[in-house]
């Protein structure tokens, strides 16, 4: 079941990155929107926060309903905190800490992103 998938995702801090995974060209990610990247058996939602010239990545799995949908959600900010709204029931999560901003769901896992030579890289610790 998908429930068991949750444990596959845990936040990676920048300091603990051991692998920078080359995901895709920048142009594949819509401006101010997201797309899903496959890394081994993981699904990672990557967001091109172009208004701020920033990139974020998190698990693609909705912690509420356990569906692979977060990359299709809408981004925005909550009092300055960049966030993602799940397309299923509009639960919002901080893209900086993963915290659920409008409820008390468990936080989602967050991954570091870097851009080099027009490519998007996601940081993993395994």
């Amino acid at each position, binding site marked *: *079941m*998908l*429930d068991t*998938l949750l444990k596959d995702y845990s936040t990676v801090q920048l300091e603990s990155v051991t692998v920078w995974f080359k*995901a*895709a060209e920048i142009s*594949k*990610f*819509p*401006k*101010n*929107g997201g*797309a*899903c*990247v*496959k890394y081994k058996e993981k*699904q990672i939602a*990557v967001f091109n*926060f172009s*208004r*701020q010239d920033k990139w974020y990545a998190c698990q693609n799995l909705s912690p509420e*309903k*356990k*569906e*692979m*949908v977060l990359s*299709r*959600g*809408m*981004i*925005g*900010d*909550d*009092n*300055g905190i*960049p*966030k993602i*709204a799940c*397309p*299923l029931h*509009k639960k*919002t999560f901080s893209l900086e800490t993963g915290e659920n901003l409008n*409820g*008390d769901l468990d936080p989602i896992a967050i991954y570091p992103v870097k851009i080099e030579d027009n490519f998007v890289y996601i940081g993993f610790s395994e």
Partner: protein
Amino acid sequence: MKTIIVVGNGMVGYKFCEKLVANEESKAFKIIVFGEEPRPAYDRVHLSEFFANQDAKALEMAPVEWYIENNIELIISERITDIQRANKKISTVKNREFSYDYLVLATGSSAFVPPIKGVEKEGVFVYRTIEDLEGMLAYAAKLKDKNPNARAAVLGGGLLGLEAGKAVMDMGLEPHIVEFAPKLMPRQLDSRSSQVLQLKLESIGLNIHLSKATNQILGEHAITGMEFGEDDVLDVEMLVISAGIRPRDELGKSCDLEMGVRGGIVVDNKMQTSDENIYAIGEVALYNQMIYGLVAPGYEMANVAVAQILGKQETLMAAEIDMSTKLKLIGVDVASFGEPFMPAAKGHSVIFENKTQHLYKRINVSLDGKKLLGGILVGDASDYNMLHQVYLNSMPIPEDPSQLILPASEGGAFGSAMDLPDNAVVCSCENVTKGQICCSVSDDGNETLKDVAQATKASTSCGGCKPMVDDLVKETLKSLGKVVKERICEHFDYSRQELYDIVKMKEIKDFDLLLDTHGTGNGCETCKPLAASLFASIFNETANKQETIQDSNDRYLANIQRNGTYSVVPRVAGGEISPKQLIAMGRIGNKYDLYTKITGGQRIVMFGAQLHELPLIWEELIAEGFETGQAYGKSLRTVKSCVGSTWCRYGLDESVSFAIEIENRYKGIRSPHKFKGGVSGCIRECAEARGKDFGFIAVEGGWNIYIGGNGGANPKHAVLLAEKVDKETAIKYADRYLMFYIRTAQPLMRTAAWLDKLEGGIDYVKDVVINDCLGIVKQLDEEMQFMVDTYKCEWTEAVENPEIRARYTHFVNSDEEDKNIEFVNLREQKMPTPWA
């Protein structure tokens, strides 16, 4: 100058200072406050918030400067060790002495630690001060380093224990609650509500152990487990004790003040101890032979002590103290008020229980059925404030008291907070009445919740009364004829209608530009789709253009379903479909293995398409002559029709032809919410046109037009806009009505709610649409015609444009499908696997 010394700078000691300096007379006193903790008083009630941000300053009741400004000498990190009543002196740990005229003991309480063998071991904590929390955090971090699955237990399943349970869970430890009694929250809940609460807590991951007496704590230096019986052991590496409180009454004992048998310094209704110069307030004070472990009674005690010292002798502590509590606990509402249990001899109970929803409500009513005596709410405490007020003010209750707790019929059983008497205490923490709140708005000109809270202090402590205070502020503003501004969200300080005008006047067609010129921040899931809807309603822009500001359904031109797959719904105008088209749909559905069903709007929906399949499916549908049905948009859904005079022997006109014409006219138009139509061939109304946002019914001599109807959760019959008009006029009126609605409605407001809220109601709509009282019908007509003339099928646009088509892949870096989508079989079709 006389001196007041306050011992203890906790919540109640602080409140005493605040109330004292608010009086002019206090200027005649020198005020000295001692606190043992290393920081000025903080909000213990919200202590758990410290885990989230570890910001002790954010919890402060007032900064150090406040004490200075108010001439209060605050001495922290210095405990008082002795009182010499004979010469009115106190001494501190640092052996300093101070003289007093009045002494106020606000020493609070400490966590009770039961004498269990081994409690002194490392890893055992209590939950009372910021230092306790810092200790827990550090210890938990250390544990998790060694063992990511470390477990922690909380001893005590009361209000505080459950809060602590949530805290250890948030620290990433596996949480266990150990309770001596056979149920959780034994003091507030009956057995059944306790069980409901337990189910809910277990569902979110708390492990609960009831009827457990702990014999000893196991481990060498540090705790490794708890032993209940011979073979009954729970392995845990950390323990938080939350087994009740003990008043910190040692000063009272050592100077021989009258004490309670089980502790606490005895006070009368003036808050005076057995020494008339010494007062005791808060959790150290024993009043009516009780210690009150809540802030509200503590604050009231502070108020009484201030009044008594300043000579206002008529202010006394009430004989009965309200112990009602509502705590928001781990996303579970729990509240209990008045007499929660009540023996059968005193009254009747009405109980509503639904374990599947983790819901339990109980109210206790007097034998004559006239008064509410108390109750318990678990799972949904939204009615708590109102019920609590009804109880406090002995207000009349409905003849059938079950109405008070049954899922509310429209408007709820008790109307608005404005019905409360003026002297009803709305905020019990700060003792603010309904009258004071309303006056703060009407007389002092405060217009927002924030201003009123600042002026009256209402809702600034536990915050439980906030919704009610908010209601009162809004209702009072309304009664003064002031509009309560409906702001879209934090990014746009405009109502939808204002933004509509801006977009239209300034011809802004780009979300980023709109945000840069008229908003702040980066937008959100509220304002983005709203702006998208405006661009569509004004410029007839399809959802393909600015796809990332669309709701997910619009972005992919399909409805996302339970398992992340999508549904496909082609337009079948008026519900008329040829056998040839049916065969085509059947073939395509079969090819892509889709689940098919007839919708309520007389068309066919195919479920279970994966993202990458959508353009393929639509390409084939379009080749067969179909177009998008826009089932995903806030736009026209369907126009339902009966067969009318074409086939029906009662029919007065051709309802199918009219429905097809009108559906094709309005297709693609985006609006504040979805809208639907219906056309019936006679008043037998087989198409249920009056259950739609607009409906036409053929009558002798023409068509009747009805507007503002609705099915769904709040069914509403549409009302008559015009009678016996010809078809052209009928269309014209409908055009204008819809455009007027699109311009003026709030976001996500159906026509029924819009009409309901519209000042002047249906008569006003008639005036605008038929009599042109605003002089805008020409504009409305043109706007509608523009929409009709510029319609494009979004799916045709999408499959023809490679760039748009490229959006339909699950992964950007792989062509693989999402392997996590699972289906099961049902009645020979596929279905998503049920949600757990």
